[in-house]
């Protein structure tokens, strides 16, 4: 009996069950159109028809769709989850890219042409030939001050951000500081307030006047937005309550010894706090250079 595969091969079409990069060309084309508009209007959330992906929405489907509509034969892809190449989410997305494109992937930031990330920007400075794709759970920065999507859209249209400023002010009155930890709201190109995805405050300055292009994909909420290179990105702040990054003064990575990176706190076996680099690839690199040096 003739197998389906044999019939397919006889017909001269690809025997693969999927298109290159999983998405069909029509889906890619729509994402590409929206991506170009997103770059032309920095910080503005462009609606797109988010496709079904082989993982649940909320697990990086927006970032995956951006990555898969970008990749071609010359690319090397790196995927990180909270700075960690070995995270479950990162490992699975990396495997999907490998299986549906045949591309090689890397753990080294400098080797990658496209880096997909969840909640971190790599410590190592990105170059102009690199694109960072960030996975976004909640693309609407006004969500906490305005629940209605249509009303938030009008606020963006009118650049009416008074509710946002009031919320920041009230935060300071109640707690003595702006309490945003991850996803600190930013003003892009002096026009749109943007949710930078839940990156730590540590990473916010890296968005400003960067050499690399940043793309943001929210699969569940069907939004794409972008920060082009060399674009002004300013954290929202008051003159007397300026934005500040996390303070790791006097702390260093227990593994590589770095004292100039974003650190994650855990509890050691003896119950003491212990710090470790969040960016594992950078940590490896520092460790390697120390070992070579000694």
């Amino acid at each position, binding site marked *: 009996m003739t197998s389906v595969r044999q019939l397919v091969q006889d017909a001269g079409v*690809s*025997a*693969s*069950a*999927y*298109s*290159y*990069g999983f998405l069909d*060309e*029509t889906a*890619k*084309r*729509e994402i*590409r*159109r*929206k*991506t*170009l*508009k*997103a*770059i*032309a*209007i*920095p910080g*503005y959330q*462009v*609606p797109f028809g988010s496709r079904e992906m082989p993982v649940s929405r909320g697990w990086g489907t927006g970032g995956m769709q951006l990555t898969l*509509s*970008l*990749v*071609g*034969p010359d690319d090397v892809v790196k995927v990180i989850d909270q700075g960690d190449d070995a995270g479950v989410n990162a490992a699975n997305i990396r495997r999907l890219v490998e*299986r*549906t*494109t*045949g591309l090689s992937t890397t753990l080294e930031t400098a080797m990658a042409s496209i880096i997909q990330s969840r909640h971190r920007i790599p410590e190592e400075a990105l170059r*102009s030939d690199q*694109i960072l794709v960030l996975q976004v759970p909640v693309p609407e920065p006004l969500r906490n001050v305005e629940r209605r999507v249509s009303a938030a*859209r*009008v606020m*963006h*249209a*009118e650049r009416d951000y008074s509710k946002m400023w009031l919320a920041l002010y009230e935060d300071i009155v109640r707690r003595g500081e702006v309490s945003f930890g991850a996803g600190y709201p930013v003003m892009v*190109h002096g*026009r*749109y307030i943007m949710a930078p995805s839940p990156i730590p405050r540590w990473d916010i300055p890296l968005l400003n*006047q960067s050499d690399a*292009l940043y793309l943001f994909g929210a699969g569940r909420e069907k939004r794409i937005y972008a920060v*082009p*290179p*060399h*674009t*002004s990105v300013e954290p929202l702040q008051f003159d007397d309550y300026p934005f500040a990054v996390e303070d790791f003064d006097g702390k260093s990575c227990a593994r590589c010894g770095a004292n100039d990176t974003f650190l994650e706190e855990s509890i050691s076996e003896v119950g003491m706090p212990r710090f470790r680099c969040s960016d594992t690839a950078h940590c490896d690199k520092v460790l390697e250079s120390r070992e070579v040096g000694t």
Partner: protein
Amino acid sequence: MSITPQLTSAAARDQHVFRALISCFARPGTIGRIPHDKSFGSNSSASVASSVGRCLLDHEVSFAFAGMDHALAEHLLRVTAARSTDLSEAEYIFAAPEQMISALDVANIGTDEYPDQSATMIVLCDGLGTNGTLLSLSGPGIPDVRDLNVQGVVPEAFDVLSDINADYPLGVDLILVSSDGSVACIPRTTRAEIQWKRDVD
């Protein structure tokens, strides 16, 4: 056993064109390279524009032509299935350089709530990078100022573009292509000042 999907030649061209466009949109004024659409003649700016059209157009979007011969329109209708419509409604406008001003006058600039629902204009110019009108570009994607030479487009067209795009975030995004496969983009965020112009022969 799984078989790795292969990139078809059409999909490979679209991906290549997209990466050139994304790079040029992210860095306005830099010149990228786009392969000619071999199924539509060769070595003309129209076959470069055709590659751009095939990368971006499908049945979900509309396009219009300003001062162009019908061959490219018929080709794009056939291979992309995009809808042909009026200049004022089109999401993608293909314009001959001499028609750029009149097309800009009626092009859709989007709405305050949906500034992305605006026209992208593809202008088939005579050359990029040398001679012609010298533009000095500034804005997002440009560290300080970047110069761009555009041939075959009357300098006043860039004044009209600046006027329209002054109402940011409303505006029109411009893709310039020439017959040698060069491409440069001027998104609405870019300020384009005319530095020097040569009298059009």
